[in-house]
């Protein structure tokens, strides 16, 4: 039985899976982002960025490597670790 983790992720069969295609990303209860497809874009390159935006700050985008559904995003400087959200199975 599937258990919701977020609008884009579920627990299924002891694994964290993409809610759209059920692709397994990581064991339940473990960080999953390092198993996602990651792309990053500088905030300064997004439409509407202000004149004072830090040139280094990124929007990290984590997508399902199978179906390309966008699973999560976060703001980060390059040297900072991923934000890991852990939902108990």
């Amino acid at each position: 039985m599937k258990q919701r983790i977020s609008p884009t992720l579920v627990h299924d069969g002891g694994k964290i899976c993409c809610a759209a295609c059920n692709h397994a990303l990581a064991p339940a209860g473990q960080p999953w982002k390092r198993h996602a497809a990651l792309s990053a874009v500088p905030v300064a390159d997004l439409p509407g960025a202000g004149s004072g935006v830090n040139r280094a700050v990124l929007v990290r985008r984590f997508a399902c490597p199978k179906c390309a559904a966008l699973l999560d995003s976060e703001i980060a400087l390059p040297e900072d670790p991923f934000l890991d959200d852990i939902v108990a199975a």
Partner: protein
Amino acid sequence: MDPITFSIIRHRLFRVVEEAVITLKHVSGSAITNEGHDLMVSLYRADGSLLMGGVGFLHHLTSAAEACKAVIRRFEGQINEGDIFLLNDPYTAALHTSDIYLIAPIHHAGKLVAWSACFVHVFDIGAMNPGGFAPDAMDIFSEGFSSPGLKLVDRGEVRQDVWDTLLNMVRGPEMVALDLRSMIACNNVARERMLALIDKYGVDTVDVACKTLIEQSETRLRERLRELPNGSWQSRQYLDVKGEVYKVVLTMTKQDDELVFDFTGSSPQSKYSLNCSKWASLGGLFAPLFPLLCYDITWNEGVIRPIRMIAPEGTIVNAARPAPISVATVGAIQSVNNAACSTIGKMLAASDKYADEATAVWHANHFAIFMFGNNQKGGLSIGILTETFAGAGGARTFGDGVDIGGEIPNPISRMANVETIEATFPIRYLFRRRLKDSGGPGEYRGGTGAELAIVAHDAPDGGIDYVLSGKGSGFPMSDGLAGGYPGGVNDYVWVHAPTDGHNADRFANSIEAIPGDKEPVSWGVFPLRGQDALYVRWNGGGGIGDPLSRPAESVLQDVINGVVSAEAAASVYGVVVESGRIDEGRTKAARLAQRNARLATEAAE
């Protein structure tokens, strides 16, 4: 207690607070109170614990409880009927010196039975910069007077020596006096209405109802927490001042019926005044918790009991005296608000039952511009541009955020109309409107922020000056959820007019149309004089979900409505708009290309 009587008393307690808020606004003469609703009124038990939290800035509910307890400790044996105490020291309980608490004991038949407390951001506090925010302060000693507790009213009589001393230390003493009198009136009304309630139902019955109300809140919040999944959720906020970057880092852990907010990893305290004290951080995390988790639960001590905070000493979220702290409310406290909003939103989104209560982060960064100078009426004006309270709604899991839709920590925040501000300050607005591309992209878009530009107008001194505490122009702070992007950032631009005498476009309707050299500014005191202009934009709310999943028709409407650019429609949403219509073929190709590009990226590992 029979449920009918309990329900009536609960409702009456809320109405006591409501009526006290109305009184506060009726007596106060400042825009920040009446227009921005930078205020709070609440009731407390005899021991200082929160009984009935009111509206206004919610991070004050727990801090004012601590203020009550500090007064109880300091004035043991000297708390009399009709007294009113003042406290504004951030290292004792307050958030920053400008937010003065007036705290009044409520006695019945000679016995202390409750407290009322309120605050307003006073007109001035005697800090190095007018209005109270002191971005250049090196320590709290430059941030105005700060009292860990003093008796302002003794048995119903204002202590004139104390009153005169306070007003001797501030600019615009007549306005500060009005602020203080509004809070005295507010507390008087709260006391009268509370005593009327006790007279009608009896002190013992009201006491039982108050105890029951707190127990009920605790029980209901614990039940709710047990319904939510166990887990831990993280958030990170960046603040920037003069090129230095600070972080507020939060891991929120929920286990069974308790929540722990752990700020370990946050930056060491700053030499700049964006720090906050531990009481402020506690209040800061409760500000989103009250409306997001307790929207149908009375906000009182019962809500506080299941919550624990870890805030390492000496960090930006638990600064040590005498670190400067005057910008806290729009600095570290607001980032604590945002981080807590983000983690609570993610926890709610993990629940089938409560997913619809989840939200991305709302307007995450007050721009907090305080203007000061002589006005067109021959007086002194000090005050905030109340647009800082206008906010922007974060997206929900079922819909877009509300454009310029307020903010989570203050359910009644709002902004003044342009004419009110122009009547208060010698300035003129060139424009004020929703800001394109400021709402965080997502399947559900964050609400937009806005932009404005002002010039000096009819100013006896040729203009006016302003204090800018503009952390956050470097980093987005309104986080998205589940793939949604963050809302846009704040921006502050000083437009230096050309000096050829033919420089002023009196009707410029965009930043591009204002002639002159454009200098980004963010921290300090700056002039607005001559033909120069100040351009400000404020951040939008975060989005939720994949922007490529947003219906193309919705994106088209956003473009038509001027809240999303055609460039963003194509590059972020993958929707190609030409001549006011969707190019279906190119849109399908663009979205497919963007998805394929995601698959072409490496796994993060």
